[in-house]
């Protein structure tokens, strides 16, 4: 929450200011789309550890954060990444090795938890997951919850419908609100004050932003506020929720950014291949993350030819006919 007129800063500064060891964070986007990848790489590069991550289906970004050794705990609905990795590979390995403490929810539940945080209520109800292990198995024990004031006392609560059979519903599952310390989004357009316009699907980005104590927005373009205000109904996030605005062209690469560029099937598949082996993965990080100064450095490694291939077609918003095998 911040009303300053100019919040533009460098990515390194934004991450250093708002993402701390042990921070509870969430990132925007979904699997292979609009993940704030430049910010994810910067977090890895700055060596920020022990993050508590709230994820619905943030495929690529979350898998790299896990792979980069930044994550201690994760609340998650889905650790998959489309065709490149039906289960995210570093995530899979971390859970199997027990290096990340995890707790499972459904996608709708995670969405509702951000929605509750944005609304300012302690919980929201849903009819999802009754009778399942999502209700029965808690990743974080009662003791761990009691010891940590940043965790609710219960994973979720099953309750009889207090309005009898209203809405023809016998029971509901209450899921607790999430208020991340920081949410990081990548959007197409933002002004210097932080008002954002997202094109294409919004996923949970808006609630993730409104629920967070601080919001870092990376964007393809910084545009004039007056321009955005010509159609205020298309600006999903007003500046009052935003702490930092960072200009990062291709900031979602190698995930896609609708109307700007497609996902890069080559890079996603190279990442998936490297992720399968600890040595290869170290080499991958050394080359693409630690070995470059910033996101432009990574883009230079990828090269103009590959970026040209994923350039969005103006009609469809994606790279028509892209070889995605």
């Amino acid at each position, binding site marked *: 929450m911040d009303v300053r007129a100019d919040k533009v800063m460098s990515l390194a500064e934004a991450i250093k200011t708002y993402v701390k060891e042990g921070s509870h964070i969430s990132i925007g986007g979904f699997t292979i789309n609009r993940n704030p990848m430049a910010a994810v790489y910067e977090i890895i590069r700055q060596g920020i550890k022990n993050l508590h991550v709230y994820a619905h289906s943030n495929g690529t970004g979350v898998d790299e954060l896990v792979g980069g050794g930044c994550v201690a705990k994760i609340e998650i609905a889905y650790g998959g990444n489309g065709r490149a990795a039906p289960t995210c590979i570093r995530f899979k390995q971390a*859970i199997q090795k027990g290096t990340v403490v995890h707790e*499972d929810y459904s*996608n709708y539940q995670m969405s509702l938890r951000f929605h509750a945080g944005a609304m300012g209520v302690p919980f929201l109800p849903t009819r999802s997951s009754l009778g399942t292990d999502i209700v029965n198995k808690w*990743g974080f024990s009662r003791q761990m919850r009691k010891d940590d004031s940043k965790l609710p006392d219960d994973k979720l609560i099953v309750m009889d419908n207090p309005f009898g059979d209203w809405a023809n519903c016998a029971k509901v599952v209450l899921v607790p609100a999430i208020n991340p310390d920081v949410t990081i989004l990548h959007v197409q357009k933002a002004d210097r004050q932080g008002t954002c316009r997202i094109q294409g699907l919004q996923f949970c980005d808006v609630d993730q932003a409104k629920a967070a104590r601080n919001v870092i927005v990376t964007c393809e373009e910084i545009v004039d506020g007056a321009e955005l205000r010509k159609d205020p109904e298309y600006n999903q996030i007003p500046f009052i929720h935003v702490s930092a605005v960072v200009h990062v062209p291709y900031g979602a690469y190698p995930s896609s950014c609708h109307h700007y560029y497609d996902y890069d099937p080559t890079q996603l598949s190279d990442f998936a291949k490297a992720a399968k082996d600890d040595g290869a993965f170290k080499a991958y990080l050394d080359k693409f993350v630690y070995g470059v100064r910033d996101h432009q450095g990574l883009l230079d490694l990828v090269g103009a030819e590959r970026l040209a291939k994923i350039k969005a077609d103006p009609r469809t918003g994606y790279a028509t006919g892209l070889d*995605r095998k």
Partner: protein
Amino acid sequence: MEYTLRELMAIVAAREIKNGDIVFCGTGISMVAAMAAKHMNAPESVIFFETGAIDSALEEIPMAVADPRVMYSAASCGGLLDAFATMQNRITGDRVIGILGAAQIDKYGNMNSTSIGDYYRPKTRFSGSGGACDVASFVPRYIIFMQHEKRKFPVKVDYLTSPGYLGGNGGRERAGLLSGGPSAVVTNLAMMRFDEKTKEMYLANYYPGISPQKILDNMEFSVDISKATEAAPPTASELRVLREVVDPQRIIL
């Protein structure tokens, strides 16, 4: 006409979709099945994705439900809350047919897409629910894609991610869930359905050239095979839709 079992799977599932259905679908073969139905038996069906896109043009097959290919020329692009509300809300939800997949399924159609072994330190970790638990909780009927392997049809799933009929007849209602549940399990060998009274899985159709015994051999639990008939093979027109219209790049198939 030659065809693969994977092609037959997609076609068998597509045939389950009725004209006018609202089809929830995920990535991969479920998307192929939904798209095929729209070009075959259910031209007025509406495909939507958990990411919030409704009735996308799907000129190219999406590789994920967040693929920009689901955004192009949709009726609307919202977010996850919109998509799941469409199913939880009975007005639209009662018209939805879901298409899901899983790593394990039991005889009551309960699914595991979370992990094998101990939940806290699993032998194998999968993606987790995603929207699967939500869809299985909300919609009156859904199709499940499975690979037919013994370990994938266990007596008890290691983690119950998405509710089928839970403990059998009345199980969903006792848990407080909406009625409904899985209507078909489509595998690379057969299609199974659930008995109306017991809610137990039974063999409905075996694929041409596959014996009911082979199907039983590939399951840990046993199912009734007495009502089984052979599935109709794909027609030339069904295969043409699949190969030329739905996935000409052969990205999924």
